[in-house]
């Protein structure tokens, strides 16, 4: 990463759009917490959303909020909590908790709350975006149900800033649960952990989160109950876990457990590979992690796992991809030389790749937005 790159943080969406229209290739950044993701690129300058950091509107009665893209997620949560509400996104927030709403959306990142509430994909109801040629456009709106026009929020979410810059979003909010309680079920047999996790994923418990973790021969299933009466669900959760041979513990002050899960999705200086599989693939993903010496955190019912290597080389990643195919393995945190040695992104089929290139050419015709970073440039 070049340190000489100039950085510009426009004070309005219009100014940002103009900068794109008039300028050359840029690296797009929010809180700059995930610059080590994707193919290594070094555009001459950085375009930052950091000056677009305000919570513009919170309609508590409608459970919606309008937020500028550069607003730190943590600050937004603090403001919403005053009304007993939350934006149900809890990805790792990176150094100094700097992750922004726009950056989380653009990277498609998520945390344990995804089990119940989904991702930004499911929570963003409207978006304003500056496209690569400086067109400032909106899609969606500010109501939670709306099918007018194309859903550009979906297209921009997870596009890693390669179609344009998200400048503002309208999000759906949720009430903060009255109480939370976590069942932590431990064991040292990956098969037992997977069996318990799968059973819980199919039980009508309405868990808020259902995670699994594994490191150095030991692991746990974490199930979080949230609501006005979590005890009954906790009892049933323990019964499932014990039936699978795990040891149960009820944790009231459970936030540190979940913070550890989030932390397991990142590794400064090391390598993190995200595996997207079916939920029944969990035993083979756990076996692969064990064999390759990786620690694992995962969303058990969603088929998503993060494998964390203190040290990994390209062969580790290739071995994972071979072993777990057709599940996809995406390299997230990794030293630049690893991301240069092999494509951090999984391969696209030929027809989808052609379509992807056509989309890129229409939305960023001059290829100025994070050029080279993503799957198709």
């Amino acid at each position, binding site marked *: 990463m070049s340190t000489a790159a100039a950085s510009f943080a426009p004070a309005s969406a219009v100014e940002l759009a103009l900068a794109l229209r008039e300028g050359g290739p840029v690296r797009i950044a929010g809180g700059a917490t995930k610059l080590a993701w994707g193919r290594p690129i070094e555009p001459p300058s950085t375009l930052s959303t950091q000056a677009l950091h305000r919570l513009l509107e919170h309609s508590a009665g409608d459970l919606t909020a309008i937020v500028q893209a550069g607003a730190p997620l943590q600050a937004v949560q603090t403001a919403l909590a005053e009304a007993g509400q939350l934006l149900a996104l809890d990805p790792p927030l990176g150094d100094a908790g700097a992750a922004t709403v726009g950056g989380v959306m653009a990277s498609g990142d998520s945390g344990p709350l995804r089990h119940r509430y989904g991702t930004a994909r499911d929570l963003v109801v409207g978006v304003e975006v500056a496209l690569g040629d400086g067109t400032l456009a909106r899609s969606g709106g500010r109501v939670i149900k709306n099918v*007018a026009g194309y859903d550009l929020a979906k297209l921009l979410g997870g596009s890693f800033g390669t179609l344009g810059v998200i400048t503002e979003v309208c999000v759906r909010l949720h009430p903060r649960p009255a109480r939370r309680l976590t069942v932590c079920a431990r064991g040292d047999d990956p098969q037992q952990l997977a069996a318990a996790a799968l059973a819980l994923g199919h039980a009508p418990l309405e868990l808020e989160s259902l995670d699994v973790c594994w490191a150095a021969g030991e692991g746990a299933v974490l199930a979080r109950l949230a609501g006005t009466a979590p005890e009954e669900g906790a009892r049933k959760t323990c019964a499932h876990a014990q039936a699978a041979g795990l040891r149960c513990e009820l944790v009231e002050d459970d936030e540190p457990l979940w913070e550890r899960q989030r932390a397991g999705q990142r590794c400064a200086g090391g390598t993190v590979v995200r595996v997207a599989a079916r939920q029944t693939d969990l035993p083979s993903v756990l076996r692969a992690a064990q064999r390759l010496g990786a620690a694992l955190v995962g969303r058990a019912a969603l088929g998503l796992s993060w494998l964390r290597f203190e040290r990994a080389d390209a062969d580790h990643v290739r071995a994972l991809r071979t072993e777990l195919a057709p599940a996809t393995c995406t390299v997230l945190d990794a030293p630049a030389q690893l991301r240069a040695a092999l494509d951090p992104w999984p391969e696209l089929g030929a027809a989808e790749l052609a379509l992807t290139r056509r989309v890129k050419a229409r939305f960023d015709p001059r290829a100025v937005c994070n050029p080279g970073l993503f799957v198709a440039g």
Partner: protein
Amino acid sequence: MSALARELTRICGSEHVVTHPHALRTYESDGLARYRVPPAVAVLPGSTEEVRRVVRACHEAGVGWVARGSGTGLSGGALPISDGVLLVLSRLRRILDVDLPNQRVVVEPGVTNSEVSHAVAPTHFYPPDPSSQIVCSIGGNVAENSGGAHCFKYGFTTNYVTGLEVVCSDGELVTLGGKALDPPGYDLLGAFVGSEGTLGVATEITLRVAPLPERVRALVAFFGSTRAAGEVVSEIVAAGITPAAIEMMDRLSMRAAELVTGAGAPPAARASLIVELDGPAAECEGRLAEVLALCERAGASEVRVARDEAERALIWKGRKAAFAAMGRITPSYYVQDGVIPRTKLGEVLERIDELAAEHGLEVANVFHAGDGNLHPLVCYDDSRPGEPERAEALAGEILDACLAVGGSITGEHGVGVDKRAHMPRMFGAADLEAFHRLRCAFDPAGLANPGKVMPVPRLCGEVPGPYRAHPLERAGVAERF
């Protein structure tokens, strides 16, 4: 066209190609019967490969086409084009894979919404539940991003589609996603769902299904005014309760439903509220008690809690009968589909009353109150000169009232042909131009469902340049669309 019809016959067999004008009348409209256009030819392919070859043949002939599922849409999204092909997907109705351990079902587009839930019963269900679920097809649900009564808690079609096999307008087959989440690349799957058939046609659909809730409780409460009922909705939400469904009906729609169901609503009631709660038993019962207390405090004249499944079905029968029952009190009606922020409910209902009085017409109101989706039913008599036109004007002004409070012109029925003229009131020229770019990336020749969604059709340039407002446009003299 006759050469193309012969080619379609070679692909699908003569028994699956319709060219006779009388037979084509069957397909001249969808659920919005005000618009009628017979297609030049209708074809019923029997496999993905046949769909691909049909679309390819249309592409080579430069002929536009419209995909149709069960034809229940309410915005004219499946309205044929007179010089084009209607691609009827009702023969593609196999359930290909029921994978309960992974909570996935793979279906062909002609499978009905209800069939998906039946396929995964009794342990799981498919949450999006449009009122037409017994007949409407999953392919149509994907095109329209269908919702339903339970989407306040459970979300819409777009939250449940994890994989698609799509035939693009050049006849290329593209696979987007699958059973796993977070497929690599752009979320083209998310962009496709709700694109109203303008980006291609889905031939195979992978859906997520959910575990059936442990407990379901429903109640109906009657109030002296829609305002009082609306306040209870706000209080329920403010209490941090997320019901599976909250539905409101006003006096006129209650009266119509009563004529069909005879459920015995109190005659003095001016509004009714259906609240359904589901989830773990203890949570569900606790929340039910809270909702009952809120209804009573707001002065509900009567609250009926369903004691069993039969009583719950009766409560829902009243709501689901509302549209069909309108026929008992008006010769014709027009269903509107506006959305408003829930807190504006009282304000917008008063505005609708004023507008109805100005036009000398009656409006019955049925809402998905939890998510602010209004279905005003504008009543009119076809036989009275000028009345259909007044009804249409009133329906348009209701949408303007929704937009004025930050709402949307459509919550679940889609834009289709019916609301495309309203699109410029909700979106600016740059927004529409951005939509157009997506369309051009998928369908540069503009052959997939032409004339839908966008206010005025336009061609795709080879290489899009930066958007520059025309001087006339900047001066407000002309619009680009």
